[in-house]
């Protein structure tokens, strides 16, 4: 029994042990500051390689799932089960002509292609991928994520504005409006959780869920839904993919980008989508905690499940219109997030922490709020259903001849 536990523990900590082993090797011939320095770079390198490698898999995963949703196979030509499709795509994108429009603002235009990728990788730094597997356990973890996440908006706006293309401009304007509106509910919905934890650090958020013996999605289901909805909008995924709404404004802010620059936007988009799922996993689904399987496996299972939900939404939902998008954020998500925050603060004061009573109190609170919303926000169209009229005889239209 103990042997099995030992093996499980070893598998669980394999990456942490690897990094210790590596730094021990370095310590043989380097001073302390040198080891820290090199380990820092090594961690960054691992994260970037992980980010890039996961794209290869996420891309194929997404296209396969979308294919199945649409009653077709998805990529299955290149590599086993089409797994190398992304490699082929990358080669295609790399060999394409790199066009910069004559009238574009060259510096900003080129800078904008690189800019969105940097913050996306920076977010990965504070995510706990497993027990002890976090690149930097910042005490301001979530604040850092919000701050860095905002940078992506600027990059997209730079791209939209510098292209000197009207579609790109419309896409850029939509992006700014959308991302700023949705950042507020996204942050506010998590504040309830932060109240319960008493810390912004991502690691302590995970550990607090261990102490509750419940993931926060049970205590804060409404906040989870709010966060996930706002986050989907934040990374411009369907049904909130207005900034690049293909059927309306061609490709939005990246209309003028081609080749590798276009690939950079895609890269940023995929890693962003992965990050919001990872953040939702950490904050609401208990992070890396789970029985039997190694902690990092649990983290990835939960994250990819959420990513699957994203793909599912992309495959099935139509897009909102720009004014409806704004209304949805300011009239639905923000008030709800505020209500949730206030009620959470109230309940958290009233009930003891880490107790079943507390958990039940939070659940009751959420159910009450959700029922209230259902009553208030009951869609108008459901009350007044539109039906066609079936007439057996024809009517000849009368034209007013005057």
């Amino acid at each position: 029994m103990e042997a099995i536990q030992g093996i499980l523990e070893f598998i669980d900590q394999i990456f942490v042990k690897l990094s210790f082993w590596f730094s021990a090797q370095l310590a043989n011939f380097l001073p302390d500051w040198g080891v820290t320095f090199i380990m820092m770079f090594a961690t960054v390198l691992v994260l970037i390689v992980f980010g890039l490698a996961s794209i290869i898999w996420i891309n194929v995963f997404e296209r396969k799932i979308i294919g199945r949703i649409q009653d077709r196979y998805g990529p299955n030509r290149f590599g086993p089960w089409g797994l190398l499709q992304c490699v082929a795509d990358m080669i295609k994108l790399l060999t394409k002509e790199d066009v910069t429009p004559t009238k574009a603002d060259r510096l900003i235009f080129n800078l904008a292609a690189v800019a969105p990728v940097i913050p996306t990788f920076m977010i990965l730094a504070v995510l706990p991928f497993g027990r002890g597997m976090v690149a930097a356990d910042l005490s301001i973890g979530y604040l850092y994520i919000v701050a860095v996440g905002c940078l992506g908006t600027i990059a997209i706006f730079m791209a939209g504005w510098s292209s000197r293309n009207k579609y790109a401009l419309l896409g850029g304007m939509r992006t700014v409006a959308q991302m700023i509106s949705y950042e507020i509910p996204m942050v506010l919905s998590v504040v309830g959780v932060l109240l319960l934890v008493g810390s912004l650090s991502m690691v302590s958020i995970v550990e607090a869920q261990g102490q509750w013996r419940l993931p926060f999605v049970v205590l804060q289901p409404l906040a989870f839904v709010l966060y996930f909805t706002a986050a989907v909008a934040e990374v411009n995924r369907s049904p909130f993919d207005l900034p690049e709404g293909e059927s309306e404004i061609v490709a939005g802010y990246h209309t003028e980008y081609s080749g590798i620059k276009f690939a950079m936007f895609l890269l940023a988009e995929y890693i962003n989508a992965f990050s919001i799922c990872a953040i939702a996993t950490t904050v609401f689904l208990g992070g890396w905690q789970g029985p039997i399987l190694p902690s990092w496996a649990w983290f990835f299972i939960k994250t990819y499940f959420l990513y699957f939900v994203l793909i599912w939404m992309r495959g099935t939902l139509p897009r909102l219109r720009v004014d409806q998008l704004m209304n949805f954020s300011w009239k639905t998500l923000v008030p709800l997030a505020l209500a949730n925050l206030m009620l959470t603060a109230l309940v958290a004061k009233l009930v003891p922490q880490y107790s079943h009573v507390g958990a039940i109190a939070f659940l009751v609170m959420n159910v009450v709020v959700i029922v209230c919303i259902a009553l208030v926000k009951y869609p108008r169209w459901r009350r007044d259903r539109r039906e066609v009229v079936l007439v057996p005889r024809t009517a000849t239209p009368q034209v007013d001849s005057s």
Partner: protein
Amino acid sequence: MTELKTETITINMGPQHPSTHGVFRLILTLDGETVVDVEPVVGYLHRNHEKIGEKNNWIQNTPFTDRLDYISPMSNEFAYVLAVEKLAEIEPPERAKYIRIIMVELNRIVNHMIAVGFLLNELGCFFTPMFYCLRWRELVVDLYEMTAGSRMMPNYFWIGGVSADLPEKFLPECKEFVDAVPGFIDELERLLTDNEILQMRCRNVGVLPPDVAVEYGCTGPLLRASGVPYDIRKAEPYSIYDRFDFDIAAGTVGDVLDRYLVRIAEMRQSAKIVEQALRDLPEGETATPKKRKFRPPEGDVYHRIEAPKGELGFYLVSDGSENPYRYKIRAPSFVNLQSLPYMCRGHKIADVVIIIGSIDITMGEVDR
């Protein structure tokens, strides 16, 4: 405080644009995201169809009409063939008449399925409803292939009948398809009609009041969605439509949602008609004896049918020779498209796209 100065921007949407249904160009004047004015520019697919039609002989024009509205080729052939038959006073055999009705109504189902699929695509629903609809179109084009030998350009209707009798497999397979259609439409409605976003996006967008619709000369689902139950199949029954029992679907408001619902309802009605036609299908000849050189008497004729997109009319003038002297087409897409600027003004840019989708145009027919 001084007033903020704003400017409108002009956007050129198309002719190469993902959702203009081919090479259709729109000059949009936008105030932010709101559409101030729309100027449609057509003609990018102009290929001299009507003039070439004068050079073709009467028989050659039948396959040529397939190229008009390539989504519903059977309806185009039907209209042309009926016009020529009216001119030359040819009466096709009974069996051919029923076969024609079956083909044309199957065509209507396909056309509306594609219209609904594209509409959802333009709403931003990444191709999934489109593929679901195309799956059913596939079954119909298989039926076409079985009978006519071609899936998209069947050249099946001949002057005085149809080119071939139905193959043996056709009747059971067509019956199976028609029986399955209502189930599929129920599925489609369950998946789409109650979708919150679809309702939000389509409700009260692109409203076309009945009087305006009539004044623009709109026909087909566009007119019916505005609440005018006008259908040429009932108003002026051509061929044998008076023998079938079916209803006209009409909307109440005349917005995009109504057009969507009317198309869904029409698919059900078409399935009903095909079912009746299959039931009553008589035995016998499928074509009158064909002549190598077909020369209708001198004169002119206008014949119109209710094509899936609206009133499709052919005006033909014969000088007694092998070629038509004049070959004029009243294409429903072209006429319906006129109402686009009226419907778009004041809406958002995203609405323009779905309004185009709800008119259901085919550029092959608009530009000819």
